[in-house]
């Protein structure tokens, strides 16, 4: 006890010394408690505590035993999962075009490596943490081996014992064999390279067996997995490691923030490109593209950029506001005209015009010196060109020859939808939250009505409504694909929840922050963007990640309106294959594991993000 309270009684002069950067002593080692003592202190400190421990252990073991019985039940044919991995991952994506999937995955991994380097995320581990995790993992594996029923193949069971014992020994050796394990860190580079190396070694050496569909028949051969799988995975791991190292090197050369900016932009538009350009492979009609699409995009980029450059001139005053209002009026009228069929205009023209109006209205906020104005105008130009390219790509027929039409399915579909639903509902949720807390009653009422209606309706209803009915309500000449309709409906639904989460964050901001901003003369928009939202969103991170996890899991509802996502494939497609009639249990267990692994990593990532952002805010 006296040891523990030691740091608390240090005289305050010591604290002052530390604050002024004077050398101070290293904190004493936090000793590793031997397992026996740890158990005595934490699990069996009293009679009632001991009884609870035993009870919970019994329940946990019971659940584990039950799960293992399910997994290794005689009627569970795990070949149904092994053979159908590709189906679960990418649904019917044509095998001869699969290089596109690998290119997409590789791009994402490269971006991940670069981003980790750009944000300088410290994902290093202490040896102590590594030791504890390894030993715990090994222990659990041995326990699983003990509880595994006799129906399991004997080599699987033996494998668990061997692997579990090895991990346990390594973990304990690290914990008790190394001096000061809590102070020695494994650098992230080393961690990344070893994980990548382990994955590569696993796919090349581990005899998982070779499962595939030959023609329509499932076939199996022993040995390591197919070269068409292990080859690409090897490349993927090399890409990941290499991109991280390249990112580190770039960070030393480029001005700080440059790589971050590029990567942030990538995470917004990159995935859409991979989906609609790489995976979908649109058959562009180049004559039309050069005659219509390119001039239109460039026109908006250059003329709009010029207008915005003018509008960001400081001290434009009334004139700027009038131009903004006029542009907004025209933009709105374009849509009205579309409903009454007054004049033809490409949809992307209407969208661009609306976006330009929004930029024009924001322009006075971003007014400043030449460099700032150029940045604003360039940002607009890049955004418009990218948007036009995307819209063109989406509206161009695909070259893919797909057996059953939706070109996205399985895991890719779930992840894509969840990702872009979150991305789209984020700005919408922010706007709704701001409107709901606004001083103007009309905004408040509109936002409240929207939020309460969408939160009061089941997601399924909304998905049905959008996938089936939306096209009936759109004016003549406009139509929207089923995927886009589902995505729109889901985003609007999600935005309502997002708004409520963000509103919680907004309420956490003290009044003094508003007063200080006002006293400095910031406009309402500036106050919101630079002071209020950054603080509110930080507070909201745990809730937002919770929502992201829910959004990801609920993509399974997409199956009901025709999407081939994981649950539908596991529960309908696989059990209907001639080789695996009725086999839905292994696939359902497998996708549960996939969902869980993904959700769990998201919540872990959120925790480190919080810590990362929490640094220095002093709260």
């Amino acid at each position: 006890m006296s040891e523990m309270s030691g740091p608390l009684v240090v005289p305050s002069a010591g604290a002052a010394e530390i604050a002024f950067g004077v050398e101070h002593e290293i904190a004493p080692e936090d000793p590793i408690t031997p397992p026996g003592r740890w158990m005595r202190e934490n699990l069996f400190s009293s009679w009632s505590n001991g009884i609870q421990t035993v009870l919970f252990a019994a329940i946990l073991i019971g659940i584990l035993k039950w799960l293992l019985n399910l997994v290794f039940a005689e009627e569970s044919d795990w070949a149904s999962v092994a053979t159908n991995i590709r189906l679960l991952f990418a649904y019917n994506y044509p095998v001869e075009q699969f290089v596109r999937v690998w290119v997409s995955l590789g791009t994402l991994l490269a971006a991940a490596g670069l981003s980790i380097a750009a944000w300088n995320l410290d994902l290093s581990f202490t040896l102590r943490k590594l030791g504890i995790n390894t030993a715990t993992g090994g222990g659990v594996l041995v326990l699983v081996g003990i509880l595994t029923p006799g129906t399991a193949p004997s080599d699987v069971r033996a494998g668990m014992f061997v692997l579990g014992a090895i991990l346990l020994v390594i973990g304990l050796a690290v914990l008790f064999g190394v001096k000061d394990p809590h102070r020695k860190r494994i650098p992230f580079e080393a961690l990344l390279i070893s994980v990548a190396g382990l994955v590569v070694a696993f796919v090349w050496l581990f005899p998982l067996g070779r499962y595939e569909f030959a023609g329509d028949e499932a076939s199996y051969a022993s040995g390591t997995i197919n070269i068409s799988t292990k080859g690409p995975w090897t490349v993927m791991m090399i890409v990941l490691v290499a991109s991280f190292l390249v990112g580190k090197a770039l960070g030393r050369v480029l001005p700080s923030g440059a790589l971050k900016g590029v990567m942030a932009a990538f995470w917004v538009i990159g995935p859409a490109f991979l989906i609609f350009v790489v995976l979908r492979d649109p058959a562009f009609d180049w004559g039309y593209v050069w005659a219509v699409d390119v001039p239109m995009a460039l026109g908006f980029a250059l003329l709009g950029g010029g207008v915005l450059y003018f509008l960001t001139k400081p001290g434009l005053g009334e004139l700027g506001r009038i131009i903004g209002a006029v542009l907004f009026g025209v933009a709105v009228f374009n849509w009205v005209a579309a409903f009454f069929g007054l004049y033809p205009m490409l949809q992307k023209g209407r969208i661009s015009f609306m976006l330009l109006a929004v930029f024009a209205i924001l322009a006075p906020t971003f007014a400043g010196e030449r460099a700032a104005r150029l940045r604003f105008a360039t940002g607009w130009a890049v955004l418009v060109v990218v948007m036009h390219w995307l819209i063109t790509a989406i509206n161009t027929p695909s070259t893919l020859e797909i057996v059953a039409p939706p070109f996205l399915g399985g895991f890719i579909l779930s992840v894509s939808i969840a990702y872009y639903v979150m991305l789209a509902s984020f700005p919408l949720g922010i706007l709704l939250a701001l409107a709901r807390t606004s001083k103007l009653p009309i905004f408040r009422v509109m936002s409240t009505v929207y939020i309460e209606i969408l939160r009061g309706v089941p997601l399924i209803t909304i998905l049905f409504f959008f996938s089936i009915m939306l096209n009936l309500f759109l004016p003549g000449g406009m139509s929207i694909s089923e995927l886009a309709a589902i995505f729109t409906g889901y985003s609007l639904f999600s935005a309502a929840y997002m708004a409520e989460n963000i509103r919680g964050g907004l309420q956490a901001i003290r009044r003094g922050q508003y007063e200080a901003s006002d006293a400095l003369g910031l406009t309402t928009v500036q106050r919101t963007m630079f002071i209020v939202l950054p603080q509110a969103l930080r507070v909201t991170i745990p809730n937002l990640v919770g929502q992201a996890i829910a959004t990801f899991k609920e993509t399974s509802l997409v199956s009901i309106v025709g999407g081939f996502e994981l649950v539908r494939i596991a529960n309908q497609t696989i059990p209907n294959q001639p080789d695996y009639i009725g086999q839905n249990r292994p696939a359902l267990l497998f996708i549960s594991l996939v969902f869980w692994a993904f959700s769990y990593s998201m919540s872990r990532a959120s925790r480190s993000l919080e810590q990362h952002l929490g640094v220095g805010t002093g709260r």
Partner: protein
Amino acid sequence: MSMSDANIALSAEMAARDNMITCRGVKKWFGDFQALTGVDLTVKDREVMVVLGPSGSGKSTLIRCINRLEVHQEGQIVVDGIELTNDLRNIDKIRSEVGMVFQQFNLFPHLTVLDNITLAPVWVRKKSKVEAEATAHELLERVGIPEQAAKYPGQLSGGQQQRVAIARSLAMEPKVMLFDEPTSALDPEMISEVLDVMKDLANGGMTMIVVTHEMGFAREVADRVVFMEAGNVVEINEPEAFFTNPVSDRTKLFLSQIL
């Protein structure tokens, strides 16, 4: 009170200066509660005015009306020739000319000290980032903490935070600075470092209105001291006369309680 009353206790030199702030019959209600009951007050260019008064007498309300953090319902407030009305352009103009320092500092916790100071000059004054940062470093030097630019407010002591808050206001090159009990949230040993910065400012010719309980500061720095009670000005005088020879009974009672 008439206009001449509002100018009482001014030396001839001071009376000849321009009016920086003029309040005429300012009234302010919170719901049914009247917090200001018709305040008349004139602050001259480069004058330092200290506002005293018991808790709840309306000191904060008055200075918050001067930069429109609160909206007065009746009367007139003119700052540097601009009248405060509902016209947004006037409000923006006055806010960028009137700096305010709060009891609770109100620094932006998610921004570094440097960003706290440069934010408004860049986005409101439309200065270039480079220029704004150069000014910020000069100001930090002036308030005595040049080495803290890269830190976050949460990593500073209270006194340091308040000095950053002063630097943040000064970065807007205000003509008037309002202080609402700038040292009340500070530990005793940090009070003087903030008061020293304020003294420097006063000696540099800044027009200031300071709500404070620091009587030493009032005596040493103030050109005039104002005593408020129940939403109005009870007494205005030069500090020496105010402290040694108060006129109203209410002032005498107040001084006897706190001195």
